[in-house]
């Protein structure tokens, strides 16, 4: 007996091939980018020092992008994530430096505060039925004011070197520990979304709240959990931010919000196309930093980096849409 290939099975395998290509296109683009810069800068780019440097420097952005990814998955936006990062980083610094708390107590308090901020977001969004964009924007602005208040608008330096050591000075395989923290969060989140009931419920709610509700999923509880998780992860990003610099300043971390959203959307074109996913986000962040590092090493002007950042996002999402035959976007 022999297997006869029909046009239908050919079409099917072409379809599968196309889907697989779409899944790994960003990963391949990242590889190509790496090869391109290695050829242009053979002595400096393709070294372990450069790789470890790129890996070690992006942990804050990775964790912040993963923080906003949780509510994005359940169909909500958290625009307060960067403000939570800055506020918790400042709280950590002020409590450790000015109030004399131990670094352990300051870190735990910062993470708890992050969870509380997420819960406040959830309360206003779910109880008053207000769109998450409005509430998180409002709470984010409120937190910016709180940050200026507790810091007296100043940068607080002198945070315990224990934290700095745990984040950026200690290394594994030459790569600062910060990278492994970001990687661990991404892997745990991937596992939770793929293999736990809570994770599947989160995806289900994101795909269609009404359908999820009719199937017996407690939509409000899932959304509330996603806001709290987002707050805790944003606070963890704040802890890493403080550990990176050994200080906290009241405004500059706010500029991480848009890159975090860019990484999340870029990540949604990879691994599980059309779906926000942690591994895709990780690839997105490191694809972008590879481009930025290579361009900077080549001596490109600041504006070229912005062109690359914005351009890469638009091109990747547009190409992904072409492969999907321009189906309407329904991220979630």
């Amino acid at each position, binding site marked *: 007996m022999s297997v006869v290939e029909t046009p239908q099975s050919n079409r099917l395998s072409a379809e599968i091939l196309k889907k697989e290509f779409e899944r790994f296109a960003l990963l391949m683009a990242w590889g190509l980018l790496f090869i391109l810069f290695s050829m242009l*800068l053979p002595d*400096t*780019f393709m*070294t372990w*020092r*450069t790789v*470890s*440097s*790129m890996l*070690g*420097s992006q942990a804050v*952005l990775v964790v912040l992008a993963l923080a906003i990814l949780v509510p994005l998955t359940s169909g909500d936006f958290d625009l307060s994530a960067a403000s939570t990062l800055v506020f918790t980083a400042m709280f950590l610094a002020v409590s450790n430096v000015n109030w004399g708390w131990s670094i352990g107590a300051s870190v735990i308090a910062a993470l708890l505060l992050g969870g509380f901020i997420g819960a406040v977001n959830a309360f206003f969004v779910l109880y008053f039925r207000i769109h998450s964009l409005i509430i998180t924007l409002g709470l984010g602005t409120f937190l910016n004011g709180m940050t*200026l208040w507790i810091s*007296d*608008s*100043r*940068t*607080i*330096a*002198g945070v315990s070197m224990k934290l*700095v050591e745990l984040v*950026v*000075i200690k290394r594994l395989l030459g790569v*600062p520990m910060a990278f492994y923290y970001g990687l661990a969060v991404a892997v745990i989140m991937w596992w939770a979304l793929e293999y736990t009931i809570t994770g599947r419920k989160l995806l289900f709610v994101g795909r269609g709240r009404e359908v999820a509700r009719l199937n017996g999923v407690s939509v409000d509880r899932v959304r509330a959990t996603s806001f709290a998780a987002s707050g805790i992860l944003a606070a963890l990003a704040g802890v890493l931010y403080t550990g*990176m*610099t*050994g*200080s906290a*300043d*009241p*405004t*500059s*971390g*706010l*500029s*991480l919000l848009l*890159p975090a959203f860019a990484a999340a959307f870029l990540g949604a074109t990879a691994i599980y196309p059309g779906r926000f996913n942690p591994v895709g986000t990780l690839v997105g962040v490191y694809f972008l*930093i590879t481009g*930025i*590092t*290579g361009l*900077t*090493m*080549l*001596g490109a*002007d*600041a504006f070229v*980096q912005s062109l690359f950042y914005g351009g890469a996002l638009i091109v990747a999402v547009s190409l992904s849409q072409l492969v999907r035959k321009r189906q309407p976007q329904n991220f979630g």
Partner: protein
Amino acid sequence: MRFHGLTLTTGALAAFSAMMPVSASADAMADAQAVLDAHRVVPEFNPLGSPFDATACMADKSVFSIPVNMAIPFNVELQKAMRRAAEDVGFTYTTWENQGASDSWIQGVNQAIAQDYSLIDVAGGLNPEMLAPQLREAKAAGLAVTTTHLYDESQEQADFVDASAKVDYRRAGEILAAWAFVETAGKPNVLIIGSDDVLPSIPFVEQIKESLGEYCPDCKTRYLNVPVNEWATRIQSGTQSALLADQGINYILPIYDSMTQFVTPALRIAGASNVGMASYNGTPFVLDMVRDGTVQMDVGESLGWAGYAAVDAQMRVLCGLEVPESLGIPLLIFDASNAETAGVPADFDSGYGDGHISGFRKLWGLEG
């Protein structure tokens, strides 16, 4: 003979050229050291203008100051000092509290016109060009317009501005260049980090490059331009990339010292513990970093002095007197040897002495 002569001439030339770099280098080192020495002593007050009776002249005058953003501690301290000076003289001085939004600056100008102030001052880095229509309207309504702590002395002020209390950013550039040259024993390979979107950055960076070029024409400099709103996202990655691209970089000069907090992790991640860092502004948390050795040097300026000098310029405009071209604020080097004089923890005004207060009071006829 000819051959001999040629040999002798060549030999003499070779000996001369071999000596030249040594002598030029020695001169350069002495020159750089002299620049640093001049900024290591606590400054004395030298009046830049002629004395006048400030109380009489300012009796019916008032000043309305619009800082770029009162969420920035630098602006808060500068405003406090200006208010102290105004209270000393006894005229009405109002600070327009805002958080850096252009609509609130516009609202400030409108308030000043509506309430018949005598002078509008835009302070702490706010570019008057951004409020040109409103400030022209203020001028038409009879108000004077000044800027404080914005332009470098080499820069021209906007045509509708009556006077500007300018800052000697080029001098700060000379100090940073001299410091990097001396600290690297005459072999600097410098990464300069600036923000071209901040008005005085261009002459500041130009001066660092020019000075280093004079000390050692073959020395390498590399410039990283990072717009202010991208400091948190671009300084660290840009510094790391520069260090990886040229592993010979031995000094980093972020021109504004708040940049240093993003350079520090880049040095740690890139494993560049032997690379030094020096900057300018005298911001307290950076002075603390100088004290603990994370930053090697910070050029500071007394904001108390700057506030008095700014008010001096404003009063001279309103009194019809000639206005000095510069704020004349002395720059002081803070390194490991004197960082504690800036306070523990550091503040904006310690370490510079208080000679300026009695100096200005005498200049204004408030004390004999």
